[in-house]
């Protein structure tokens, strides 16, 4: 395959994925809705995936892409279990607000 991206330096990918990761962290701290917090965790996982793919493309090594594959598997499992947890919590407290889940709080 012809490579289309010869003119973009690798630093741009480092910048982009660290910015995406920080947006995800900020979202986790910022929001109170559990579903949005779960989505922000997905955002962080995706920024790491993007970084791994860019490193694997620039270093010409397919190991990184295989690793991204496994990260996707874990993310899918995590989302399925997390959403099931949210649904069952919603049945008990009738809200997805993070402040309504403080039974374990000291």
């Amino acid at each position: 395959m012809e490579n289309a991206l010869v003119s973009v330096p690798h630093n741009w990918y480092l910048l982009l994925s660290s910015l995406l990761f920080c947006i995800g962290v900020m979202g986790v701290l910022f929001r109170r809705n559990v579903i949005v917090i779960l989505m922000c965790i997905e955002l962080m996982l995706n920024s790491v995936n993007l970084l791994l793919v860019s490193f694997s493309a620039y270093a010409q090594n397919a190991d990184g892409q295989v690793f991204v594959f496994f990260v996707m598997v874990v993310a899918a499992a995590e989302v399925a279990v997390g959403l099931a947890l949210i649904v069952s919590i919603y049945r008990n407290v009738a809200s997805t607000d993070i402040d309504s889940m403080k039974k374990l709080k000291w």
Partner: protein
Amino acid sequence: MAQYIFYALSIVTILSALYVVFAKSPMYSVIAMIVCFFSIAGHYVLLNAQFLAIVHIIVYAGAIMVLFLFVVMLLNLNQEPDKSHGKLLRVAAAISGGMLFLVLLLSLNTSETGTFILPEKSDIGMVEHVGKKLFNEYVLPFEISSVLLLSAIIGSVVLAKKES
């Protein structure tokens, strides 16, 4: 040419990620997240990882976001707008996110990066190459991940089932 495609995709990615965080209703967050995933798939195509781009669209935009959408609609969350934290907590969240970005930026600035140069031609990201790697070197993690998926299926069914 490819440079401009990269810039456009990056702008779309970052704006939609910001919209995920700041949208009033979780419904809009989900829609913005789908846009963000498609632009990341575009990045994968630019990086010659076609197999991963397709898998990313199928798994994330196809399966995971449908799950999110399903739960948002099931729980009827789009009626009342989401209340956010108090002002102090919000400012603290923005500051800590910005500080983390600053730390990452400084560490990138002082480390030696950008020494990689993309070769003119590569077939690293093709199905053939990734598949050979996956089924030769990584065959044990591949099988173990199937067990993980099975346990996730069983766990989510058990958790979401109504106790009668």
